[in-house]
């Protein structure tokens, strides 16, 4: 039930945003993420954006995973 998926904000209308994932569009509430901007990815949970995905951190984690794997014989 705590499922949340990353969706991209394509436009903002007051406290709602039009979002897109894999070609599917959906209007979501951004009352918990008022700082969200067009182009941001937000975590969508039951119709609400509960957080903004941190792209820099996402890249860092992938880099870390690659490094960890490269240290493994």
């Amino acid at each position, binding site marked *: 039930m705590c499922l949340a998926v*990353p969706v991209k904000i394509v436009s903002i209308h007051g406290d709602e945003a039009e979002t897109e994932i894999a070609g599917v569009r959906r209007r979501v509430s951004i009352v*918990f993420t008022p700082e969200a901007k067009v182009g941001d990815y937000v*975590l969508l949970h039951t*119709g609400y954006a509960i957080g903004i995905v941190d792209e820099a951190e996402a890249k860092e984690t992938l880099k*870390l995973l690659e490094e960890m794997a490269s240290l493994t014989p």
Partner: protein
Amino acid sequence: MPVKFIDEYRNSELAKKLSYRIAMRSTKPIRLMEFCGGHTHTILRYGIRQLVPKTVEMRSGPGCPVCVTATADLDKAIALAHLPDVIIATFGDMIRVPGSYSSLQQAKAGGADVRIVYSTIDAIEIARANPDKSIIFIGIGFETTAPTIAASILRTMQEGIGNFYVLSLAKLCPPVMKALLDSGEVKIDGIICPGHVSVIIGSRPYEFIPRDYRVACVISGFEPLDILLCIDKLVAQIEKGEPKVEIAYSRGVKPEGNVKARQLMDEVFEIGEANWRGIGVVPESGLKIRKEYEQFDADKVFSVSLKPPKEPKGCRCGDMIRGAATPLECKLFRVTCTPERPVGPCMVSSEGVCSAYYQYETIGGDLQDF
């Protein structure tokens, strides 16, 4: 079409290398609990139980809101459904969970108006479209969902909608972790902490766990590489004997969490006790609607009389919720309890451990699935 922030965390080559690294680092036998039902699903689906070394035992925890809803609370929801001019709005999985004498689905078949919603926003729309009915939203969920329930009450108030109510069954994760650790029934060395609960609460509410119980805590995302990264960090902490709270899901979780969401949650709710299936009443583990908003509180507005609750015979969902058993130890599992005819909620819910075992355990997960 690849989905950003999901597909890059499903690389099976990386997963194999990570699992090898974990095996190299793990010397002592340890037991890890994945608290969240979403994590249980990823672990079973991708065969992570088979990927980790034999030293690492995995147990599932109470992180499934449908599963932990007490039978007495479900009975109340069913009784409310039978009141005249009431529409029940509920998240999908709840409808099939057997109560003591019936289920919401059976109530619906008997003429009650029970509707499945994806969001509290949909429940408000039902209220708007049916001004002569009372709409009661069955408010289950953890800290991830509780802010959305709070937002629905605030929005209803703002828009002057007078026929929307909430039966608040919302629950808090850190207090039930404390209850499990205090009971000492299942020895746990590390906890895979819930990712989306932590988007809201941050990492700080878990700090008492390494400090007071010497149990390692790492917050994880929901893709297979996220889980393996989390297990790698837990093993490292436990091997070093230095338990602490770490975030292995930094693209979603900040130490401070989502302050705005918590403000809205605190505005509407106050902390009280909650009744957990299989665990019992845990103090300060539930969210009650504050007096200022009691006009929306289904518990205050409606009254129903209830017979004493009874649990399904032989059902071990309570043991599953506490991590005291796996579904393979339940005599009903796959015999009389199946997804088509579930006996308990852990087989009904898509996050329930029995449902995950039923779907994936025979095939043992599959790396090709990545």
